[in-house]
């Protein structure tokens, strides 16, 4: 209960959570609200927003409903954000745990490897990966996962390093538990709080990254996504600003909501740190 109370006391976090829930609801009920494919040309092209009840946010240059695109895009953005974060965690957590627990030579090699991935300009690497593997849901998720795991590995390594010498870990060693079991049942559960916080912030940056990729034309060609919509409206900015405007707002709100929620989680899970930060 304490956790909930601390979370609610952070006004920003509550606002963020509310926005996030709204986006999630839209993503879930989207297909019921707009059963037709968002790619279908349903109206006259370049219908301005707030002029027709049927198309509250207007239509784009091909007469596609922008509101329908936004709702369907919410699914895609959240899906890619969450899955690619899971991919990044699946790479980063084991790597960091092994590096931190084994120490010595392993630690050295793994950390050099991590550093290498941190040096490469991550967006450029993501572009190259998606372009080479051909744009698809899988290649986008892989690319985002591959460029986002290094901070996770560093975080987990640091946590494991500090936990490794605790008494309960030594006790586990003494009673003869195997190393994998110690890592999974003694050490990792105690690193979950910071991983959750980092994970929620990573979903936000994954959504930003996905939208940037699809803005450049590297989105999955079968999925309507917010970044694609912004990019598609680019050429008609002056006479049809709304085509690019609304999807951008959707990205902004979702990312903001995730950031706020993540910070709220951080404050609620690490009350000592939060007080120091004011």
């Amino acid at each position, binding site marked *: 209960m304490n956790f909930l109370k601390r979370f609610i006391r952070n006004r920003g976090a509550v606002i963020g959570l509310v926005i996030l829930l709204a986006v999630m609801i839209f993503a879930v009920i989207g297909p019921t609200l707009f059963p037709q494919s968002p790619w279908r040309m349903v109206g006259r092209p370049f219908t301005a927003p707030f002029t027709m009840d049927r198309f509250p946010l207007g239509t784009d240059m091909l007469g596609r409903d922008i509101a329908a695109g936004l709702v369907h895009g919410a699914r895609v953005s959240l899906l890619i954000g969450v899955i690619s974060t899971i991919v990044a965690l699946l790479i980063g957590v084991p790597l960091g745990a092994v590096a931190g627990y084994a120490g010595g030579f392993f630690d050295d090699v793994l950390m050099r490897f991590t550093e290498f991935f941190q040096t490469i300009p991550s967006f450029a690497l993501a572009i190259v990966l998606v*372009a080479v*593997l051909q744009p698809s849901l899988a290649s986008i998720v892989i690319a985002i996962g591959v460029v986002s795991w290094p901070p996770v590995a560093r975080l987990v390594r640091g946590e494991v390093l500090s936990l490794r010498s605790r008494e309960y870990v030594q006790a586990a060693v003494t009673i003869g538990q195997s190393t994998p079991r110690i890592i999974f049942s003694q050490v990792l559960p105690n690193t979950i709080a910071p991983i959750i916080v980092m994970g929620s912030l990573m979903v936000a940056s994954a959504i930003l990254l996905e939208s940037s990729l699809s803005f450049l034309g590297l989105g999955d060609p079968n999925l309507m996504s917010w970044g694609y919509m912004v990019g598609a409206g680019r050429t008609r900015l002056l006479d049809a600003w709304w085509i690019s405007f609304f999807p951008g707002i959707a990205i902004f709100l979702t990312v903001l909501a995730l950031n706020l929620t993540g910070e709220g989680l951080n404050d609620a899970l690490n009350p000592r740190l939060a007080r120091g930060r004011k």
Partner: protein
Amino acid sequence: MHFVRFAGSRLVKGVIVLFAIAVLNFFLIRAAPGDPAMVLAGQAGEADAVLLAQLRERFGLDQPLLYQLWIYLKGYATLDLGFSYRQEQPVLTLILDRLPATLILTGAAFIISLVLGVLLGALAARRAGRWSDSLITTIALIFYATPLFWVALMSQIVFALKLGWLPNVGYETIGAGYTGLSRVGDVAQHLALPAITLGLFFTALYARMMRASMLEVAGADFVKTARAKGLPPSIITRRHIARNAILPVVTLAGLQAGQLVGGAVLTETVFAWPGIGRLMFDALIQRDYSVLLGVFFVSSAMVVAFNLITDIVYRVADPRIEVAA
């Protein structure tokens, strides 16, 4: 002697990173669907059979994989990044032509965001809890969540297309024939929107970091000492707190240089800025993989060089900092 060894080890590390990227590029060509010769030719459909045969010969594509890798790495070692058959020019020439524009853009964005971020962050920390702090923190939060390309597009509508304050796209006024100072002014006008929109996200990031860092240092013992001996608060803030708080921010900013180069792809695409980011976008559209991978390599090299310089400058400026070599 110590310093030379330090610089040397950093240099070796940088070279290893670049070597690894070249190896990565080699395997990426093989990961692309289709015949590697076709990928190198940058053609999706029908390619000239003679050209393909030449490429197979040149890159030893009928030889064992390790031998192919050797040839490829030898090319990179002699700064031969391949040939763009689409644009009929060596990749390196294409990139070098565009590099200055990108350096100007990212350099300007870096300076703007660092200066503005540090100032705003420091201001927010001094007024912690008051309305000016809330204002700065909120603005930082907003720009931290806004997609870069969207800010670029929207500022393009507002400031270039509607208000007409600044030029819409490009690097300079074409055909104006400005020289000397008036040309610098012209480029600066074109630079303003791309550099500011590219820098906004980073300004927000640095402002948040600077604020947190200032508040952390403000609790340190030496600050208490300074206060106890009766120094005026403004001097404590400036000399004791800000100076120490700025170090981690600058370190992070140095590490973030790579992100800036990546962001330049988006900004340059929106503003038709003739840099390597725009080159990358064009290569993407044309599926010109040699150029794509070349730009990837060169932008990584830029980051490696930048990190190297930061490390060395740091070492000279503040000998206390033992950067793990």
